[in-house]
């Protein structure tokens, strides 16, 4: 069996006074204490993990946070750099790794130009690393190609917020405002499983008499707390929002004063909706009109109300527009800018919010500045001490970057904090593209599916070791202190960037001793931008336990509740959306079902971390596929049977689990997308291969992770 046993002496006991969960966007604080070390062949280590009260999580933890230390302490952590020699990854020194990177980058740049090197980041990186990654691409490498996995997350909501309000911050309100809302609409967001520690806010709202409406094709755990569940047909969210708005207009529940004073575009919107036939629209949505009307009246009549969306609405072909159609409801009823009101995009990744503000995006500079705006370029160049003309222009989004990789316009790629070969749409193109690369570098804690393909793998620190700030879903900046020394030869990701920068002759621009040094530069670089962090310091974060942005001065308290007086557009007004959404029209008789995917409670993203935590790996083992009972009956599929899902892009297997899902869809787990997807076609259990290359230019931001598929009944168990 080739088995071996190591019995190394155990180090001194672990005690982390305060750290932050590495998973979702709530960023719960906690302590981790070792009670008993593992005994080889006898027992696992025992740890106590306790929530630390803070404003967002109020001391709560979910099963992911309780067990997050397990992956950080896992024996599978990468402890030294790995370099590919004769086809195999072998340990090498940091000196060799960095030297190798500098040389290969130089060779490729000499032959193909600076843009031949691409940089690919992630939404779980700290603000400091995300900021530095943007600077590293533009200043150290001089490439325009940098982007990150947030494009497959909340980007549609981010661009919708920018378009409608003039600013993108996850929540326009504070979490503590939720219990003050009279009506709450949760559209395509499964908070109970994805951000479980937020659920008590909603329960509290319910106790205060709030009416909760859940819009989701699935009967999710969140739907069970709803007063009303609209089980919409997948892809019909924008039309459902329109139908609700029309019903609100018909009932005279709009707020003419707010519309007149604070918005524009309402006249056009009314014209656009004039022809909307409610009965027809409800039928297309697959929801009873009476229920839609009930929801509309409940939201319209409530004194205060909130609408929240997540990937269910955002990650559609037309997700950006779908979000904007929901924002029409917010504006038309004047439910924003006051207590108990607002809109929220429930960000998924730990630093999904901060990660999108400081230059990881192709078109962006720190502080949500634009790389195409001369004044923004000049300002950031002055902070960095470079000539504005030396900054590259905007690159392309993460999805298009992979096309450039496939076309070999990008020949070297540095991936940091992401697993694109599993998490991206059109994984076949991604995998082919990555194989074509002359040089692939992956910085990760584990040998992820993407890292296995790399020429060079760089071991990075985990959440317990890597100090830095993260911005939670509310827009509250939190400081995660270093909890224990970096194990083995692991390095902080920002430190790796500084070392590479030094080797390529740009040391002068990357002189930092600590994460705080980087943050202090970020403060200045973001100053005066939309996402202004200038007033936030590590000291304040330690004493105040978190500060909201925008915060433009050290004495500024930061804005928890946005848009009280004015919106962030130059004219101070919000913009209604009157362009119609294209919706989802690609269903054919041959492929009649639409795939939706999502997290299960114990797992996060593609599972690189959670599948390596025994207590989490032990939960939700089955790679299940959920179907409407009628769909299952039509194909004679029974509980527990294996089914094969096919689309025009590929196929995979999963186990059928009974679920009350809208009859037009099927559901799979996001974290299982990569399961055995590398094996021969037709024998994959990850849904990755069926995800299509669907991408709508209009939104400019969003890629679909929706697939169409046909159910095929393959076995008789």
């Amino acid at each position, binding site marked *: 069996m080739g088995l071996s046993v190591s019995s190394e002496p155990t180090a001194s006991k672990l005690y982390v006074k305060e750290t932050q969960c590495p998973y979702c966007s709530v960023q719960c604080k906690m302590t981790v204490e070792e009670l008993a070390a593992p005994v080889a062949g006898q027992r696992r280590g025992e740890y106590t993990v306790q929530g630390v009260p803070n404003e967002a999580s109020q001391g709560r933890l979910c099963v992911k946070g309780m067990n997050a230390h397990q992956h950080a302490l896992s024996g599978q952590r990468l402890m030294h750099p790995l370099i590919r020699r004769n086809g195999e990854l072998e340990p090498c020194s940091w000196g060799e790794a960095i030297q190798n990177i500098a040389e290969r980058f130089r060779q490729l740049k000499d032959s193909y130009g600076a843009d031949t090197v691409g940089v690919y980041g992630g939404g779980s990186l700290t603000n400091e690393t995300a900021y530095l990654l943007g600077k590293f691409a533009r200043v150290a490498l001089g490439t325009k190609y940098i982007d990150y996995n947030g494009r497959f997350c909340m980007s549609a909501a981010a661009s919708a917020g920018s378009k409608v309000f003039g600013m993108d911050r996850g929540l326009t309100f504070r979490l503590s405002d939720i219990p003050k809302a009279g009506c709450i609409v949760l559209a395509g967001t499964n908070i109970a499983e994805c951000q479980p520690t937020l659920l008590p806010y909603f329960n509290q709202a319910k106790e205060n008499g709030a009416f909760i409406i859940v819009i989701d094709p699935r009967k999710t755990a969140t739907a069970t707390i709803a007063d009303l569940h609209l089980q919409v047909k997948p892809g019909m969210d924008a039309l459902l929002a329109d139908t609700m708005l029309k019903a609100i207009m018909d009932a005279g529940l709009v707020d003419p004063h707010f519309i007149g004073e604070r918005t524009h575009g309402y006249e056009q919107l009314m014209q656009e909706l004039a022809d909307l036939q409610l009965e027809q629209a409800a039928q297309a949505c697959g929801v009873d009109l009476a229920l839609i009307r009930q929801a509309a009246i409940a939201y319209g009549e409530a004194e205060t109300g909130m609408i929240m969306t997540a990937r269910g609405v955002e990650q559609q072909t037309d997700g950006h527009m779908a979000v904007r159609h929901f924002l029409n409801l917010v504006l038309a009823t004047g439910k924003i800018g006051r207590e108990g009101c607002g809109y929220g995009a429930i960000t998924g990744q730990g630093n999904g919010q901060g990660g999108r503000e400081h230059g990881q995006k192709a078109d962006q500079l720190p502080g949500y500045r634009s790389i195409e705006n001369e004044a923004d370029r000049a300002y950031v160049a002055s902070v960095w001490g470079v000539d504005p003309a030396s900054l590259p222009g905007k690159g392309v989004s993460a999805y298009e970057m992979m096309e450039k990789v496939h076309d070999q316009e990008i020949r070297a790629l540095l991936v940091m904090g992401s697993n694109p070969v599993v998490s991206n749409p059109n994984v076949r193109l991604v995998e082919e593209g990555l194989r074509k690369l002359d040089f692939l570098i992956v910085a990760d804690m584990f040998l992820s599916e993407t890292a296995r393909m790399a020429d060079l793998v760089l071991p990075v620190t985990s959440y317990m070791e890597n100090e830095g700030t993260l911005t939670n879903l509310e827009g509250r900046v939190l400081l995660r202190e270093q909890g224990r020394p970096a194990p083995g030869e692991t390095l902080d990701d920002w430190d790796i960037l500084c070392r590479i920068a030094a080797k390529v002759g740009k040391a002068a621009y990357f002189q930092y001793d600590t994460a705080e040094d980087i943050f202090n530069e970020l403060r200045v670089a973001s100053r005066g931008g939309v996402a202004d962090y200038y007033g936030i310091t590590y000291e304040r974060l330690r004493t105040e336990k978190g500060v909201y942005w925008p915060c433009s001065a050290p004495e500024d308290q930061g804005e928890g509740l946005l848009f009280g007086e004015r919106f962030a557009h130059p004219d101070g007004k919000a913009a209604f959306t009157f362009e119609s959404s294209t919706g989802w029209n690609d269903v054919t008789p041959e492929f009649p079902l639409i795939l939706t995917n999502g997290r299960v409670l114990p797992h996060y993203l593609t599972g690189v971390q959670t599948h390596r935590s025994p207590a989490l790996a032990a939960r939700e083992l089955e790679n299940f596929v959920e179907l409407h009972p009628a769909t299952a009956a039509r194909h004679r599929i029974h509980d527990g049977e294996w089914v094969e899902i096919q689309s025009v892009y590929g196929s995979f297997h999963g186990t059928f689990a009974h679920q009350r899902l809208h009859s037009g869809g099927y559901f799979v787990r996001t974290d299982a997308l990569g399961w055995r997807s590398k094996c021969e076609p037709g024998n994959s*259990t990850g849904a990755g291969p069926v995800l299509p290359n669907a991408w709508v230019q209009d939104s400019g931001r969003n890629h679909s992770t929706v697939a169409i598929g046909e159910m095929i009944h393959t076995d008789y*168990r």
Partner: protein
Amino acid sequence: MVATPDKPAPMPVCSCTELGHAELKEMLNNSVGPRKVHVDRHDYQPVISLKRDLPLILQKLGWGSELGCTVCRPVIHYYLQVSTRTIHDQEIESAQEIQVRWDNQIPLSSYARDAGGLATQLRTYWIGAVMPSPVSIGVAPGPGSLVSALVQDIGLLASPAGWEIYAGGHAEHPVKQGGLLGVAETEVQAATLASACLQWYRQTAWYDEPLWAWTERLGFMSIRETLLDDQLQRELAATLHADI
């Protein structure tokens, strides 16, 4: 061992003693020290000879008979052999073995794997392993096999994902459905997980406790958490391998 209102006295192992299985096991461990993990099978020396030392051990435990009885002797032998690894196999009276069965019929599904090959490998790995209770292993090439993987002590079932490993099933009275322990992509991984499960059973079961009863006593989730700890899984599998 004293009964309190919250904690009734355990059922004695036999009429020679008032000790229950847990107490007996713990006292035996204390008297000879916990076993070590063996990197290979040659690095330990049995330190106890049953013929020579058993009367003294029993005397220390306050046993009611000098050499034990037909009920408690196999129990003591088993605990000394498996949990402390301090006696010679030849002396043991308590050998309960593993039976591996398979079925190589070609199922209708397209993901058939070589059940016979895996079963033969497993037999080779496990031959002579001393178990607390007879263990039945089934290897099935797919659903619908004559070897029903879900009602074996340990069942390995070919699936599109690789091998599904079930534990805690029982095809006779009382019928029990096994639970999914994990999914292994390769035969080596499947063998390692199944070996780790057997070793964890050997280490923590009472003598004569069937595997399905053991999973119910420990809790299936607890067993899964233990066995899906990558490091511990490899250590347990290596221990079993070193023992046989």
